[in-house]
């Protein structure tokens, strides 16, 4: 277990963004990658691969509870350093419907860059816990500042799921 959590690293590396609304899901994907571009973790064009992937396969990167995890392949073109980003959009971002007609909507974006396999695996294991922790997700949807992200995490610790 790394000494810092994914959310702590997001704050420390300034990989966060708070937005009120966007015009399209494509714009949301671009915006959530911006902090990763600005800090040298991805190329400016990285987000285009994600947009193309969603157009090709549908919004399968959008999960329950308004969570989206935009990402491309491990060692994708323009992926420089392993990271997870964070973006909260106040108004729901509409990703359309999936093949079964189920609506796909997001307010929380966790863009991924995968280069180092061990670090990426650790990130994914932590993200899974975050995505299953609905009280934490609710608090993150209300976050306005990086301090709010840390506060949300402190107030809603991961629960050992009783699976």
């Amino acid at each position, binding site marked *: 277990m790394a000494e810092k959590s994914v959310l702590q690293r997001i704050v420390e590396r300034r990989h966060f963004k708070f937005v009120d609304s966007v015009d399209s899901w494509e714009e949301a994907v671009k915006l959530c990658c911006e902090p990763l571009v600005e800090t040298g973790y991805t190329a400016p064009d990285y987000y285009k691969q994600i947009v193309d992937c969603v157009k090709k396969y549908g919004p399968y990167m959008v999960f329950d509870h308004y969570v989206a*995890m935009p990402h491309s392949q491990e060692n994708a073109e323009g992926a420089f350093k392993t990271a997870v980003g964070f973006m909260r959009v106040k108004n729901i971002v509409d990703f359309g419907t*999936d*093949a079964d007609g189920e609506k796909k909507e997001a307010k929380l974006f966790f863009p*991924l860059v995968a280069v180092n396999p061990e670090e990426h695996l650790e990130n994914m294991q932590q993200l*899974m816990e975050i995505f299953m922790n609905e009280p934490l997700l609710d608090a993150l949807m209300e976050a306005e500042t990086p301090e709010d992200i840390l506060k949300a995490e402190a107030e809603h610790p991961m629960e050992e*799921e009783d*699976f």
Partner: protein
Amino acid sequence: MAKLDNKKLLACCANGAGSSLMMENAINKVMKKHGIKPAELRHCPVSEGKSAARSYDVVFCAKTFAKTFEEAVKSGNTVLIPLRNVMSPAEIEKALQAKGLLD
């Protein structure tokens, strides 16, 4: 001996880096809970999975890829498990039970 002991399991998504990795983690939780030791459990992108699928006993994917794999596994014995929520061990457990692969 559990039905999935020594079986080969594959989790696929478009990129082989995000949801397939989550699936692998979730599948692993189910295997541990039931004390099952599969011969292999790995994840990969759809591009690779399409040709590899037939040499696996069970292939898991997000339901959006179900059609892609139905084609790839139709002539063999591979069981396809499309999932709505790729990170839900409960859904995986239920789906495997529905296919008679898990008690």
